[in-house]
């Protein structure tokens, strides 16, 4: 199990680093194999930072991240179990090399002894898992492939390692609608094969479609978390409710969202369990919608 316990990230800002900026404030969440958890929040809410901290790309300022109870130490052993896919497939490839290189790196670092034929078989297998035809993508340059192909190739790259957890940071935001569904279904596939996925997104409908549990992040803090059905079916925090109101509907004319600011949570505030498994950050009483 991958567990985040009160993880915090602060940056020093201003002249001579005199002030601190808290990007992520005490985020706790669990990720277990075979489950998709969506981490939902607007831009600047700290969701990408959470993903990067899990992947060891950004150092943690406070709290702890543990894998099966042991503190995380980024390195080859860790990356064999926890892998990531990023938002922009075009910038994930070194533009001057062919796309095969991302797979080749894995071979050099993790499977140096594997024979050529055996390796090709392994690559073909993981390309098949993401429904890519090897002849179509291998030996090409990044600018010769589409965003969807590049993104799926990156997922195939992660699969080569057989990881237990995948951090998927906005992986569909650069894709068009049809390939987006493809990639989402692919995630569902991987989930059924036992992969634990942290699906970082700003898009509620995607989170709703793919995940078992949802965690809503606002200004670096978890404001609501729980089973997706409960969080989306019965949003208790005003921020979550506003997010849900702002999802455009196909049939209704969109009249804009109420723009009044979400009230700042008073200090100290805690997550309270409003119904089994459904946690919400306590807000001033009149704002909290009643549990219906």
């Amino acid at each position, binding site marked *: 199990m991958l567990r985040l316990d009160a993880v915090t990230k602060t940056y020093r800002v201003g002249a001579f680093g005199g002030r601190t900026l808290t990007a992520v404030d005490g985020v706790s969440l669990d990720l277990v194999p075979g489950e998709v958890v969506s981490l939902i929040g607007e831009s600047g809410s700290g969701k990408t930072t959470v993903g990067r901290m899990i*992947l*060891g*790309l950004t150092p943690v300022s406070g709290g702890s991240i543990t894998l099966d109870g042991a503190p995380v130490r*980024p*390195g*080859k052993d860790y*990356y064999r179990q926890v*892998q*990531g896919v*990023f*938002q*922009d497939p075009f*910038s*994930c*490839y*070194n*533009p*001057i*090399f*062919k796309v095969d290189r*991302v797979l080749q*790196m*894995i071979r050099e*670092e*993790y499977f140096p002894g594997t024979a050529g034929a055996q390796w090709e078989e392994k690559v073909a297998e993981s390309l098949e898992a993401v429904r890519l035809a090897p002849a179509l993508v291998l030996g090409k*340059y990044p*600018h010769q492939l589409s965003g969807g192909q590049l993104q799926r190739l*990156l997922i195939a790259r992660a699969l080569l390692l057989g990881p237990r957890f995948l951090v998927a940071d906005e992986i569909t935001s650069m894709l068009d609608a049809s390939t987006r569904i493809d990639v989402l279904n692919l995630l569902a596939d991987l989930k059924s094969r036992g992969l634990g996925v942290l699906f970082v997104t700003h898009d509620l409908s995607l989170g709703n479609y793919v995940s078992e549990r949802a965690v809503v992040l606002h200004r670096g803090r978890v404001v609501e978390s729980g089973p997706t059905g409960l969080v989306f079916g019965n949003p208790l925090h005003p921020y979550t409710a506003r997010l849900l109101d702002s999802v455009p509907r196909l049939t209704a004319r969109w009249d804009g969202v109420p723009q009044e600011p979400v009230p700042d949570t008073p200090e100290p505030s805690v997550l309270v369990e409003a119904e089994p498994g459904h946690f919400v950050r306590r807000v001033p009483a009149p704002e909290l919608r009643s549990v219906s």
Partner: protein
Amino acid sequence: MNREALHFAVRNGKLLVGLAVLLPLLALALLGPALAEGDPNAYVGTPAQAPSGEYWFGTTMFGQDVFAQFVYGLRVTFLVGLLGGGLAALIGMAVGFTAGYRGGLVDEVLNMLTNIVLVLPALAVLLVVNAYLGVRSVSVQALFIGLTSWPWAARAIRAQTFSLRSRDFVDLARLSGVRTWKIITREIAPNMSSYLFMTFILLFGGSVLIAASLDFIGLGPTQGVSLGLMLNNAARWSALHLGMWWWFIPPGAGITVIVGALYVMNVGLDEVFNPRLREL
């Protein structure tokens, strides 16, 4: 990748033109002693003679063979450029890559060092050092030039590394367990290989020019001859006013053509290294 780069390299006009100009000059420099025997400073012929079959580039005011001086000067010029420019490029890359990739305190310290060396009046330092240590050989001259001319290269490479480091492919390499050194040499550096080559070319040209300045004020290598020394001798003895064009045109053209050819090659190499610039 390498075979493919070669495929495009042998079809790149700019690269071939640059090489076509540079390689004969390099060959001339290497074969110099075979073509022009004896001391290039020896007084061998009639003074101030225009180019002829006997003396291809004519003779100086004192009867020295300009062609012999040119050939030997070319050797020294290539050597100073290669050693001085090469050393400066190496230091610049080491400092620039480290500062740009590591960032933070390492960057602060290296940046401070770079700025200190940058604001040192290099020529004045070279004067003092040369005068005290009595530098009289080409390689030591090149060493001092290399040690003082790297800062701007370090700054340029640092800035470039900084922008490449934040690209997702660097993060992906980290997620693949690739070590820092390998990320710098195999992911970041290849992306700026033409940039690095350009840096080397400018440092090469800069070293040649600094060496010429030092030669002019009598602090260059005392034995031998260089293109800079030839130019300055020509200027000192008013070759221009006396109409002795054969005395200053060969060394001047030599320096210009070498640096120019390297520049044209650089543009060509950019197309070879960057698939986006290729015609597909």
